[in-house]
C-alpha cells in the first residue's frame, strides 16, 4: 500500500446507523449541541446523542449539581430537559443537517412515558436513531430503575420497539449484579444495539459543612476513573449478545477508544472527556487513523473485538 495516499476507513454501521467515524458525543454533556457548535468542528463527530427527552419538561435537581472527583466527576443534573414538544420545535431544527448522525436519548418514569416519547419522535425529520435510557426510576415499581431488572428491561424495550422503526439502542446502567442478563433481555426484546455504560452511583461529603456535596445527595460518577469498569462491561456484553455495542465511560484518548473497540465495541461515545478538552473528538479521530496506518489496516472494523482472540 502507498504510505502517502492510504487513508484508513473509519466508517462503521452502528445498529443500522451509518456513521462516518465511530466517535459520538454521549448523551448529556453535549446538551442539544448548540453550544458546542461554536467550539467543535462537527465533522469530527460521527454522531451526536442529545440529552434525554421526556414527554413533559423536567426541572432537574437542586444545586450543586456537579463536582470533580479524582479523575472523574459526579453529576446530578436530574435529567432536566425541555420535554418532547419543545425539543421538536426548538432544538431539533437547529441540529438537523448539521453533519453527524442524530440519536435522541429517551427517558421516562413509566412504560407509557417511554412509549410516548418514541411515538412522538417517529417520523420527525433528521433523527437517525433512539437511545433508551433505562436507568431512570421506575415510578410504578417503587423507584427502582428499569435497567436494574431483566424483566423490567424487556418490558420497556418491547413497549418502545412497538412504537418505532428507528434504530434502537438501549443504554444500560452499570449499577447491577449482572450486566449481561440485562443486555440479553434488551436484545431479546428487540434492541438493535446496546449502549454502555451510564454513570456509576456515587456521592461526596463536604466535611466543612458536614453535609453531602451534591444537592441531590447522590450523583453519577463518570470520567477516566470509571473506564476500567466500563471496559469490562463492554467486554462481557459484546461476548454475550449479537447486536453491536456502543462503548463509553472515561474515554479521553485514541488509545482509550481503541481499548473499547478491541474489547468488542462497534463505536464509542465521549462525555466527560469533552469538558477536559473540546478538541478530543478531533484528537481521537487523528489517533485512530494513525494507529490503523501503523498497523497497515484499511478499516477500523478490523479491530472490533481484536483483544478477545
Amino acid at each position, binding site marked *: 500500500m502507498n504510505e502517502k495516499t492510504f487513508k484508513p476507513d473509519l466508517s462503521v454501521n452502528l445498529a443500522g446507523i451509518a456513521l462516518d467515524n465511530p466517535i459520538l458525543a454521549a448523551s448529556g454533556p453535549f446538551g442539544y449541541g448548540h453550544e458546542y457548535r461554536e467550539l467543535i468542528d462537527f465533522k469530527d463527530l460521527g454522531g451526536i446523542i442529545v440529552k434525554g427527552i421526556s414527554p413533559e419538561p423536567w426541572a432537574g435537581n437542586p444545586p450543586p449539581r456537579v463536582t470533580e472527583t479524582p479523575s472523574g466527576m459526579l*453529576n446530578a443534573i436530574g435529567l432536566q430537559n425541555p420535554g418532547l414538544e419543545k425539543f421538536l420545535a426548538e432544538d431539533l431544527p437547529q441540529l438537523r443537517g448539521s453533519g453527524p448522525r442524530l440519536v435522541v436519548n429517551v427517558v421516562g418514569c413509566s412504560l407509557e412515558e417511554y412509549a410516548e416519547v418514541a411515538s412522538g419522535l417517529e417520523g420527525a425529520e433528521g433523527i437517525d436513531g433512539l437511545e433508551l435510557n433505562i436507568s431512570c426510576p421506575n415510578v410504578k415499581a417503587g423507584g427502582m430503575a428499569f435497567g436494574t431488572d431483566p424483566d423490567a428491561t424487556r418490558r420497556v424495550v418491547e413497549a418502545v420497539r412497538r412504537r418505532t422503526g428507528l434504530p434502537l439502542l438501549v443504554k444500560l446502567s452499570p449499577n447491577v449484579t449482572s450486566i449481561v442478563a440485562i443486555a440479553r433481555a434488551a436484545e431479546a426484546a428487540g434492541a438493535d444495539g446496546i449502549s454502555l455504560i451510564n454513570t456509576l452511583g456515587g456521592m461526596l461529603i463536604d466535611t466543612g459543612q458536614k453535609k453531602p456535596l451534591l444537592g441531590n445527595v447522590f450523583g453519577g460518577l463518570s470520567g477516566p476513573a470509571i473506564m476500567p469498569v466500563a471496559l469490562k462491561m463492554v467486554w462481557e456484553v459484546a461476548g454475550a449478545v449479537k447486536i453491536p455495542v456502543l462503548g463509553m465511560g472515561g474515554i*479521553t484518548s485514541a488509545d482509550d477508544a481503541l481499548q473499547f473497540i478491541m474489547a468488542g465495541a462497534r463505536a464509542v461515545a465521549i462525555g466527560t472527556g469533552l469538558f477536559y478538552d473540546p478538541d478530543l473528538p478531533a484528537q481521537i479521530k487523528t489517533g485512530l487513523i494513525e494507529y490503523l496506518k501503523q498497523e497497515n489496516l484499511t478499516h477500523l472494523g478490523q479491530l472490533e473485538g481484536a483483544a478477545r482472540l
Partner: protein
Amino acid sequence: MLLNENTRAKYQAEICPVLDNRVVSPGYHRIQLQAPAIARTVEPGQFVQVFMPSRHSQMLPRPFSVYRADPAAGELTLLLEVKGRGTALLAEVSAGAALKLLGPLGRGFPSPPPHSLLVAGGMGIVPLAFLAASTGAPGTLIYCARTAGLLVCPRPELDRPGLSIIEATDDGSRGEQGTAADLLSRRIEGAGAVFACGPRLMLAAVKKICRRAGVKAWFSLEERMACGIGACLGCAVATTGGYRRVCRDGPVFPAEEVILDE
C-alpha cells in the same frame, strides 16, 4: 482549535502565554496572560474557563472572572485564590508557560447608571474591579471582608478617578468596621443601582436592603461548573424563572430573580 468559519465568534478557545504570575497575598495569585481574542471582546462580569496546565491531569477547567483586560495590548489578568487542587496547579504556572482559556463566557454586568454602588465581598472584588475600571462614572466601591488579610486586591489597582473606595472589615482590622450590609444600608439612599459579588449570605442581605430601598441590583453568582458554555446544565441556580445556568444565563442576574437560601 479554530472556530467553524461560518459561526460568529462568541467565545473561543485560545492558547495563552503566561506573562506574569505573582503572589499578591499568601495564597492569592495575579496571573497575567496574552489573550488577544478574549481581551478584545470581554465585558465586565464575564468569565473564562481555564484548562489545566498539565497534559497529565485529567481535570475539569476552572471558571474565573476577568479581573482586567487590555484590548490594545491583548492582555488579560486573573486574580485567583488557591482553594483546592485546580487552583493549586494553576498557581504553580510560571511566566513562559501557556494556559488554554475558553472565553469570554456568560453575560456580564449592564452599564452602571450614575451614583452606582459596587459591593464586593472577598474575592467578589474581581468582576467589580473590572466593572469599576470600565465605566465612565463608577460611583462608589464598597470592598468588604472578614478581616484585613482577606482584602487581597492591591489598592493601586483599584484606585481610579471618579471612584470612591470604602474598605471595611467585620473585625475592624482595616477600613471601617462592619459588614457589607451595614455599609450599604447607610449609603443606599439615592443610589442609581447596586452591583454585587460575594458570599451568598452577603448577597441575601444586599438583596433585602435594595428591595426595601427600591434600588435595582445585579448579582454575579458562582456555581460549580463542567462545560462552562451552557450545554451540560451542571451550574444551575434557582431563580424565579426556574433553574438557570450561571455559565450562560449568568453569571450576572437581576437580584430580584435570584432565589438565595434566604
